[in-house]
């Protein structure tokens, strides 16, 4: 039994597609059997919601009178990158607000930054734009200060170099002092542990060998119709995998883009990580077409079949030793407690299963209503790609 993208899209357009979430499909296949379910189900929706630091957006402000070629600019005091055309800027999610004391008074609070500006933009809030320039013959204006919101911009295009990490480290702290990380506050002597994955709902864990998710795949990006525009940065598919081909560590990533004017503020949330910095939590949904029984079998992956590797963020992560303390399934992690070296450790998540489930259902409803068609990738993500380290070399002679 096989299907094509075109056949699935025809069923979606006619409102007859059978769509299940990555959670529902597990029981469904258990009851109906793989072959029968493969005949019946057209699409399975996957999703994730969590902090994704490698996110940002291109904004176009339109031209003032007289015109200005902006060289330095701030949105609500958060610096934006101006090394592109006259009134285009790029705002990164982890950018700190000008004069933020960062970790000078350790641990810093990082209450507002790039991720929060992006949240406020999507929420339609009024923000302050301040820009400077050296002035040219064709762009004479040298300073601008104005209030604006997302509707005043010509374009607001979210462009994220790395989202949807296939799997992720599980963090613990074996030292005697608290460490502050992008995986939250880790208490000393392994008093807590943090993971960050939607597990059985997560897009790339349901398509471990990138058979349907590739460059050109249509995605649900915080409610907007988005796109995978490239392999994500640090895409590293050549890693240890289980018998089900599911990676035990980070592995694949996606570069995503989408129109911020179509996004829903519930799924675009600035994050303040104490002692670490600012980030952006984002909701992403990816539909998986059930082209054949093999693809269906992979989307029935459960939390108990997906393993995360525990890394010590007090030493092994910062010093890049590569040491893994233990591996646990997401079922064990989600239980809220695991045993590590004879010690019971409380576990919590940075990724929201609740929001991921909500996104799976929202995307399911859009596909069922015929509003979201699937797209066949134009390029497959690399399958056996490693990741290079940065070697520190001497000054050039």
């Amino acid at each position, binding site marked *: 039994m096989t299907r094509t993208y075109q056949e699935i899209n025809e069923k979606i357009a006619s409102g007859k597609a059978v769509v299940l979430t990555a959670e529902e499909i597990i029981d469904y296949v258990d009851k109906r059997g793989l072959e029968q379910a493969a005949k019946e189900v057209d699409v399975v929706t996957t999703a994730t*919601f*969590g*902090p994704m630091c490698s996110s940002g957006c291109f904004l176009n402000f339109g031209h003032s009178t007289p015109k200005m070629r902006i060289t330095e600019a701030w949105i609500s005091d958060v610096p934006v990158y101006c090394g592109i055309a006259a009134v285009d800027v790029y705002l990164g999610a982890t950018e700190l607000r000008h004069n933020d004391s960062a970790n000078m008074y350790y641990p810093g609070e990082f*209450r507002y930054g790039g991720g929060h500006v992006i949240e406020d933009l999507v929420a339609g809030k009024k923000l302050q734009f301040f820009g400077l320039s050296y002035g040219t013959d064709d762009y004479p204006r040298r300073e601008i200060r104005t209030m604006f919101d997302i509707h005043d911009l010509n374009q607001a295009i979210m462009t994220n170099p790395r989202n949807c990490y296939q799997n992720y480290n599980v963090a613990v702290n074996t030292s005697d002092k608290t460490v502050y990380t992008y995986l*939250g*506050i880790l208490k000393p002597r392994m008093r*807590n542990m*943090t993971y960050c994955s939607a597990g059985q709902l997560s897009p790339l864990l349901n398509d471990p060998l990138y058979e349907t998710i590739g460059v050109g795949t249509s995605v649900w990006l915080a409610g907007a119709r988005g796109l995978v525009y490239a392999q994500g940065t640090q895409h590293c598919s050549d890693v240890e995998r289980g018998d089900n081909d599911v990676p035990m560590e980070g592995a694949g990533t996606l570069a995503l883009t989408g129109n911020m004017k179509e996004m829903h503020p519930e799924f675009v*949330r*600035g*994050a*303040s*990580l*104490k002692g670490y910095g600012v*980030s952006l*939590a984002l909701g992403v949904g990816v539909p998986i077409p059930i082209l054949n029984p093999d693809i269906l079998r992979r989307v029935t992956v459960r939390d108990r079949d997906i393993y995360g590797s525990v890394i010590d963020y007090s030493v092994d992560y910062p010093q890049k030793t590569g040491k893994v303390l233990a591996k646990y399934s997401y079922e064990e992690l*989600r239980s*809220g407690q695991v045993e590590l070296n004879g010690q019971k450790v*409380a*576990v*919590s*998540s*940075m*990724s*929201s*299963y*609740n*929001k991921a*489930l909500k996104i799976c259902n929202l995307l399911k409803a859009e596909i069922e209503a015929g509003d979201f068609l699937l797209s066949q990738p134009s390029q497959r993500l690399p399958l056996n790609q490693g990741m290079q380290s940065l070697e520190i070399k001497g000054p050039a002679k």
Partner: protein
Amino acid sequence: MITKKVYLYFPKSETEKPIVCELIRNFDLTINIFRAKVTPEEEGYLSLEITGSEEHIEQAYEFLNTFDVVIHAGNKGLHWDSERCTHCGNCLVHCPTGALHFTDRSTRTVNFTEDKCIECLSCITNCPFGVCSSAF
């Protein structure tokens, strides 16, 4: 015997009076102070749990009303904004009393039970989305 959570606001005029001491002495109440910020010449806040007979608590409220103290019944010292919560559950391991917990394990929906909160404020430090905030 009943137990009530109360959050009191003391304007500058009342910060030097030994009000809590009188609550214990005159109304036979057991007082458990969660958090206090009362300094002379400044306004102050006091978050506490009062245990005693219904009648005594009633009388204590009347006594408090003779001052300029503002009484907030319930857990007003710590606010959890359900609208802003993303339900990641990262706060759960930082909450020592289980006030923050999953109401539904299948959908992993976080909820906050005011009665269990002791206002340690660790959730404020931890939450990346600023969902928890303190009244003082």
